[in-house]
């Protein structure tokens, strides 16, 4: 049944540009390969793993070798409040999937995204960041495409996120829709609690 789900999802995935039908067969076999946690074929992404690697970037899918302090620096550089590294580490340990790009020259993370959820139905993407010095070259897109693929491979079909207004245009071309059917994202605020 899991197999069936994965195939149907892969076939209906319009996000990742699928090369002409010649590749369809290999795509199907690729689905089986993906189940064994192999990275998806590079032809599925806007920028392939090889292309990234040739430019000095390495993709990582685990927190091994991730320096959380360096990651925190990137968070702060893009405007997040500085958070306790211990808490960040705790959050990373309780994450469904994550992806980060390492710049080989400095051995530091330059792009990152993670997703939490229940592992079967819903997944929320958080902390999508690209170091300001490395923005505009496709790293954010590379991270997002791979993260979404990883989530789809787990059979998760409801992938959501909260987007700041200025980056709606970043997520929309990837297939994200704001307020579909009038559904609103809401956040609890201790300050405002209306009582009837």
């Amino acid at each position: 049944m899991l197999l069936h789900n994965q195939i149907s999802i892969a076939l209906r995935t319009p996000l990742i540009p699928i090369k002409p039908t010649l590749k369809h067969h290999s795509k199907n076999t690729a689905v089986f390969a993906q189940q064994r946690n192999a990275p998806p074929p590079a032809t599925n992404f806007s920028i392939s793993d090889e292309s990234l690697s040739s430019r000095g970037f390495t993709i990582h899918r685990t927190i091994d070798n991730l320096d959380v302090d360096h990651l925190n620096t990137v968070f702060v550089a893009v405007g997040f409040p500085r958070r306790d590294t211990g808490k960040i580490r705790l959050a990373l340990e309780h994450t469904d999937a994550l992806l980060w790009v390492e710049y080989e020259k400095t051995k530091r993370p330059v792009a990152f995204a993670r997703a939490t959820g229940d592992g079967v139905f819903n997944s929320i993407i958080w902390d999508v960041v690209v170091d300001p010095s490395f923005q505009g070259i496709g790293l954010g897109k590379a991270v997002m495409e791979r993260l979404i693929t990883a989530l789809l491979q787990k059979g998760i079909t409801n992938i959501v996120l909260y987007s700041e207004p200025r980056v709606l245009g970043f997520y929309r071309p990837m297939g994200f829709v704001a307020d579909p059917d009038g559904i609103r994202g809401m956040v609890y605020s201790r300050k405002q609690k209306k009582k009837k």
Partner: protein
Amino acid sequence: MPNNCTVLLPTSLKFCPPIVSLDCRCQVFSNLQFPLNLNFRLGRGSRNQRVSQPKAGFWDSIRSGILKNNTTQVIEPPSTTEEEEEPLPEEFVLVERTLADDTVEQIIFSSGENVDVYDLQALCDKVGWPRRPLTKLAAALRNSYMVATLHSIKKSTGEVGNDQKKLIGMARATSDHAFNATIWDVLVDPSYQGQGLGKALIEKLIRALLQRDIGNISLFADSKVVEFYQNLGFEPDPEGIKGMFWYPKY
């Protein structure tokens, strides 16, 4: 049907229950009354021994509202900031009332209970949600950071050991254990809607999450229930931040 107790509207209410008609995200509460398939799980013992002693003062006000020979529905007051700092017990009585047939019904809130996946599926059926595979439901519950439930316990007037326990509400939250929690799958049995139970469920869930230092609590609300959550302290699109869905099926 044993559950068809008439809860009389109290003649004098201490606190007005908010009018809630819960149509939560992705879910439409239908008014269909499915034939009740009550699976009574009595394996835990005759009485619910795990109900912790409520704190004095606040709960006294609830108990004092229970009058003999009177079907009084008591809803606990909206929590104040002082109460939010009190540690929330994992399980406690939310409402206690006497029904028309003189049986006592308790509504129990719990945040630490293992939910029986069959009970949950029965409840999802009652509110009209599409069926989901049981194994996935079980996994989703296991992988949730917190699962809050409402159970109705009807105390037997006769012999000990015949209490009826039924799952009547649930809400769950996923979290990274540090910063963010997202609430999913909020549901209340249609027979128990309109009594403020959904509101209480979410309030308690929020409080439990805040007490674990999870600062960011979010959810996605169908347009019809945005106001319900606003009244609980949720803000839609704060600072223009939008919830986005990847290729939604709607």
